[in-house]
């Protein structure tokens, strides 16, 4: 509570106090970059009506991570392999996957059930070192990142951002009007595959920050808010990135000031709050 008092009395001293801890610095750096990558990718996810893919990825991320743990290897290997392979599979299946699809919904529910089995296998097995592994995968543990883990997460996030910037213009064209884009020689199909692989990587990153259950929010909340604030695509993209980063900063500060509030909830709460503000304050988006 003294920390909270300090933060209220003197915000600058509070921030300085917060950044005096190495784990906070790591969380802020890695979290900002992950949020920036997630917002950039998420804006295209929403544009391309692939939010359902993000929902499905949260199931795959959980099961992939726990499969790796149960097999006794690094959690992140299962996380990234699971998410990227799944993203590529969705790209091959095409845009047939609809939110209401009974088959796909059943498959994902079963994948999640499998994850629960693996969780039990892991926590009751002899190799378990972390009894709260399941909760950490579901809801993230951004303060638990080690120095090497956060460095790698930050580097991967930078890589995602660079690739996204490189393909942003043709991807926007291909997303808005695939037929015309492919007539103009834009490799629409390749772009779609690359993009879904990037979504998979981003899901793996976001799982480490806010957990597999909340990654959908990190993808879609900044995008939704940005869409409320501006109609211009390239502006909206960067607005989304800014809002995502601000959500992480705000969330980390809240959970530092009130230590019983988990950071992933605080990040989601700030992101949702920003969306609500944008929805109330921003101009109505154009119909259609």
């Amino acid at each position, binding site marked *: 509570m003294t920390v909270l008092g300090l933060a209220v009395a003197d915000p600058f001293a509070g921030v300085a106090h917060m950044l005096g801890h190495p784990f906070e610095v790591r969380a802020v750096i890695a979290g900002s970059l992950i949020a920036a990558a997630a917002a950039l990718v998420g804006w295209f996810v*929403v*544009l391309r*009506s692939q*939010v*359902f893919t*993000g*929902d499905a990825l949260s199931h795959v991320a959980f099961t992939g991570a726990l499969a790796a743990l149960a097999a006794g290897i690094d959690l992140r290997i299962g996380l990234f392999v699971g998410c990227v392979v799944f993203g590529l599979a969705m790209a091959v299946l095409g845009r047939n996957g*609809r*939110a*209401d699809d*009974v*088959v796909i*919904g*059943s*498959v*994902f*529910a*079963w994948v*999640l*059930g*499998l994850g*629960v*089995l693996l*969780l*039990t*296998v892991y926590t*009751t097995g002899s190799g378990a070192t972390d*009894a*709260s592994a*399941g*909760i950490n995968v*579901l*809801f993230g543990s951004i303060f638990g990142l080690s120095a090497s883990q956060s460095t790698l997460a930050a580097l991967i996030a930078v890589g995602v951002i660079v690739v996204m910037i490189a393909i942003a213009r043709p991807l926007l064209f291909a997303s*808005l009007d695939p037929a015309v884009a492919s007539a103009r020689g834009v490799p629409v199909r390749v772009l779609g595959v690359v993009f879904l692989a990037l979504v998979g990587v981003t899901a793996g990153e976001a799982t480490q920050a*806010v957990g597999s*259950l*909340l*990654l*959908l*929010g*990190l*993808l*879609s*909340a900044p*995008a*939704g808010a940005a*869409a*409320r604030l501006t109609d211009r695509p390239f502006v909206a993209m960067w607005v989304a990135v800014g809002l995502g980063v601000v959500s992480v900063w705000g969330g980390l500060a809240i959970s530092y000031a009130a230590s*019983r*509030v*988990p950071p*992933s*909830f605080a990040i*989601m*709460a700030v*992101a*949702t709050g920003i*969306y609500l503000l944008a929805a109330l304050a921003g101009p109505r*988006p154009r119909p*259609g």
Partner: protein
Amino acid sequence: MALLAVAAPRLGWNPVSDIDQLLRYHFMLNALRAGTIVAVAAGAIGWFMILRRQSFVGHTLATVGFPGASGAVWLGLPATWGYFGFCLAAAMVVGLLPRRALGAASSGLSEESAVIGTVQAMALGAGFLFTSLYHGFLSGTTGLLFGSFLGVTDAQVWTLLAVGLAALAVLVVIGRPLLFASVDPDVARARGVPVGALSFLFVLLLGAAAAEVSQITGTLLIFALLVMPAAAAQQLTTRTGRSLALTVLIAVAATWLGLAAAYFSAYPVGFYITTFGFAAYLLAASTRLVGGRPRRAGR
């Protein structure tokens, strides 16, 4: 722990003794009672949900149940109240939204999907906050998310029974017009069927079903009883009555098998019920492929 080890159930080749072991404890009887009630109600409501292509709505409603339940536990109230309170309130909100907002957007920036994603993540995050504040034992969170058959109280069974019966009664009354309105809303409206009112009522039923199923399979696995049995039954027959009865049968069977398997092994009930439900669906789909039954008209 030693006591538990002595009393640990052992699955043998004698079915009579197996069933006797299964029914020995009161908590297991309660789990089977609750599971049966939920399976019957969820099977019937899920059958209509699939017909109306609203499984995503059902998923979202269940997600909202998680903060309800964990908030109730945090405040010292029965989790059942939280499930029903939040799911039914969310169902009312969804029911009052314009119908268009729920449909999938064809192209362009679909803000609705961003909103749904945000609502789901926010609901799950809030649930996590409540479980963190509660500081209860760690398995509580996974129990709420992935189901648990331990600790079903008598009061919970009665609540589930009351809500389940009420939901089924409403479904019996509105079943026929609802079927009409689901299959062909335009013609139904022209014939004077109150399509809007029916769809509002149905979303409320769906909220009740999502709350009931969440208490057995957990928030994240409700598809196991709400979607899979109906999907399996609709693969096997196109006749309404038969298909509905088959759905309920599969749901009850998956629940009983899942509870029994979880009782005799160390693995969670959510995994077993999902697996049995999914197996039923796969079997049904392959039976149709092999048997070459006629595909549903209009597909």
